[in-house]
């Protein structure tokens, strides 16, 4: 039976440097939970603390109500898929998958059946007698997966499991992993630096930076309402536009240039310098708006990507979908750009935290 994971105030120190800096997490049973962040943000360190390969310098980690801090790594009952797969090179596919079951002293007949089932789940039953050196990267990945979940662990950890595969295989394996996780209903913690992968695969994402968690939310919310400018820049593409915020009756006047300002509500009382984050699809051309000139238009099939130089001196990216607008606008064309005030996010300049 898979378990929920509670992390309280976890810290990992290397000298004075805190690689994991007071992290709290509450991961639900059966959830596909992703730790996402740039390299060096502490995500793998945290994962290895859960696995038992890094010590927990402060705080606690629980599976259900069992405190894990002083449980040895080999007694934690966790499945793990390593970045480089870590397939035992001297064992066959079958022996690799059976390894954990043997360690648990599962009866031989049981082992045979469960290995067979696991290999079928990841569709490599035909490769059972092969040695790892005779497998492709994708096949090794499947062995690593089967080996990790066949022991029916409390939770499954995955450390950038797709980063060594080519782009096409990565997308394919992503689907395999997601479907498998749904079918087994096993609590999974997944580490990646690839924001697209995280959006595609997760139930919830924790975005990490400098050993701390910036935001925990569903992929949709993380994309649509990034809690600070770091997340807005890290997930997807954002145009950051400077603005001045002034109180105007119930709402706020947000002025971007002399000629253009928008009126919208904010969640917090704030006046002064601000930053707007607008996705390329949250900008559009119209009769009025910020004046500018198209620098480069790139036709990409389902949409056209425009680089527009605004008269504020800033260059922004704007996407126009071909199903909405069939005409590709030529370079050098004078245009006006408006913002979708229902969708954009506004941040204060000081703390770079969301206020809209």
């Amino acid at each position, binding site marked *: 039976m898979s378990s929920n994971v509670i992390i309280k105030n976890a810290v990992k120190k290397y000298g004075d440097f805190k690689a994991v800096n007071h992290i709290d997490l509450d991961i639900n049973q059966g959830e596909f939970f992703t730790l996402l962040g740039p390299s060096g943000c502490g995500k793998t360190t945290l994962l290895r603390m859960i696995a038992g390969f890094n010590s927990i310098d402060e705080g606690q980690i629980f599976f259900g109500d069992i405190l894990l801090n002083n449980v040895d790594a080999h007694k934690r009952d966790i499945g793990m898929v390593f970045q*480089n797969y870590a*397939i035992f*090179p001297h064992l066959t596919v079958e022996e690799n998958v059976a390894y954990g079951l043997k360690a648990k002293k599962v009866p031989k007949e049981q082992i045979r059946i469960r290995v067979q089932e696991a290999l079928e789940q990841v569709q490599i039953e035909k490769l059972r007698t092969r040695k790892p050196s005779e497998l492709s990267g994708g096949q090794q990945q499947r062995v690593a997966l089967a080996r990790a979940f066949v022991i029916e662990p409390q939770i499954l950890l995955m450390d950038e499991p797709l980063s060594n595969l080519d782009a096409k295989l990565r997308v394919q394996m992503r689907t395999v992993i997601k479907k498998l996780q749904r079918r087994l209903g096993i609590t999974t913690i997944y580490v990646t630096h690839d924001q697209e992968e995280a959006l595609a695969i997760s139930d919830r994402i924790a975005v990490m930076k400098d050993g701390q968690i910036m935001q925990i939310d569903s992929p949709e919310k993380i994309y649509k309402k990034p809690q600070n400018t770091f997340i807005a820049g890290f997930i997807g593409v954002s145009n950051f536009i400077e603005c001045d915020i002034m109180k105007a009756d119930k709402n706020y006047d947000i002025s971007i240039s002399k000629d253009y300002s928008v009126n919208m509500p904010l969640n917090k009382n704030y006046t002064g310098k601000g930053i707007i984050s607008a996705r390329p699809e949250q900008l559009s051309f119209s009769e009025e708006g910020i004046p500018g000139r198209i620098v480069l238009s790139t036709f990409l099939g389902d949409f056209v990507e425009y680089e527009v130089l605004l008269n504020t001196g800033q260059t922004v990216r704007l996407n126009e979908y071909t199903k909405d607008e069939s005409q590709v606008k030529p370079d050098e064309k004078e245009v006006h750009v408006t913002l979708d005030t229902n969708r954009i996010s506004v941040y204060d300049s000081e703390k770079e935290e969301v206020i809209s």
Partner: protein
Amino acid sequence: MKRLIKLDFWFWVKIGVVATLVLFLIYPFSSLIYRSFFSAKTGQLSLANYFRFFEKPYYYRTLFRSLFVSGTATVTTVVIGVPMAYLMTRYNVLGKKIMHILIIMSLMSPPFIGAYSWIMLFGRAGVVTKFFAGLGITLPTIYGKLGIIMVFTFKLFPYVYLYTSGAMSSIDRSLEEAAENLGSNKIRRLLTISLPVVMPSIAAGAVMVFMTSLADFGTPMLMGEGYTVLPVLVYNEYMSEMGGNANLASALSVIIVVCSMSVLLVQKYFVSKKNYVMTAMRPPVEEQVHGLKRFFITLPVLLVVGMGIIPQAVVLITSFIKTDFTGFIGGFSLGSYETIAKRLGTNIRNTYVFSIIAIVIIVLLGILISYIVVRQRGKAGAILDLLIMFPYVIPGAVLGISLIVAFNKPPLLLTGTAAIMVVAFVVRKLPYTVRSGSAFLQQMDQSIEEASINLGVSPMKTFFTVTARLMAPGIMSGAILSWITCINELSSSVMLYGGKTSTIAVAIYTEIVRNSYGTAAALASILTVTTAVSLLIFLKISKGKVSVV
């Protein structure tokens, strides 16, 4: 909540391993240093031994001689080894694989059979000397510095060759192509790109030559005659029938170690500044030459390899020649082998028994030490990493004296026992196994061990079932090198052997001293054949992944 020290399996292993090395390496060597500061006459703490060394020309001249022969041999081996490496890596030299194996053979052969064979050929009664004397030509004498340098050159050039060719075949092709593309011709490319890039490797090989020749005892002992070098002086001072002076011998030992250590440190200092680590995506191509050109490229290689391998051939041939008390009398016979079977059976048995025991211990220690050094890091790892370099700079004769000085009284009275011979083997030859084991382990990703632990196997069991299993080829290859050098070990054994613990190498030495060349040749043949067979097994197991140097 934080456990400061884990009292687990590895904790005890670290304690055990470090304690073993401290007892058999640090303690003896410190005893030696301590001893060197005591005056033999007064028994007081003093610098008398060192003053005596630097006052009397008889003593300090040996240091200059040692530095001279080692320095010259270093230059000659570079002059021979580097072009050899270039030809062998860049051209389709005829019989390349066999040449390569023969070069390794000449490095791995017993150190003093070179001396023996050159005496057989060019000595006073040598075959070649007699031949030229018949023609009325007198050859320059082989005894003294010329002979020593010659033997060192052809025995030790493989160090330079192996280091350099290793580096040359890992230069990415694009590097030279870029130079060519920028308008450099072949010679300019060699001088401005290829050679500077492999310079650190050449230096590493040269330092090995210098240290090995500085430490060698057998060759100068047999060929030096009046030309006494430092290790021979150490031996004489210690063994002298007038009642040797262990304190002076200790001081001399310290001087040798200081010399080789400073050379090593200077090299490390420069290498750390200039280290071009490369993994060749596209190794350099081997130029295909044909006909006469191929012949002229193969010829120098063949000559050098021939010179290197002559000792083995001479030994094998002379072992089958009939002898009596006057020397070789012509005609073939198995007489020499019958003699050694009758008289020296113990030596043969000792050699193999001691070496096998030593290898078992070396393998065990080697696995554990490699693992601690590579995986556990930390303080114990750093200490072991340093300790394991030590035997490289301590010449065998010096280690021999250290062990005697340290273990000549109860509670650890080991002098004259088989145990002290085995201890010397283990301490001196362990580095080969550790180096090869840790090289293997470094290439092995740690996550493989973590995967096993993660699947519920305890770290200790994981070590024995996964890690040790995967390290096996590296450990085995290293162990064979340790084995080869064990059976051929002379310099420490000659200090440590007692009536019942003599080995083949010691017997060869004493037989040559007694002018009993036939039996010496037969004994040397046994070692040579064992070495050759072991080396072939090594090449098979290591598959080129483990270097012999």
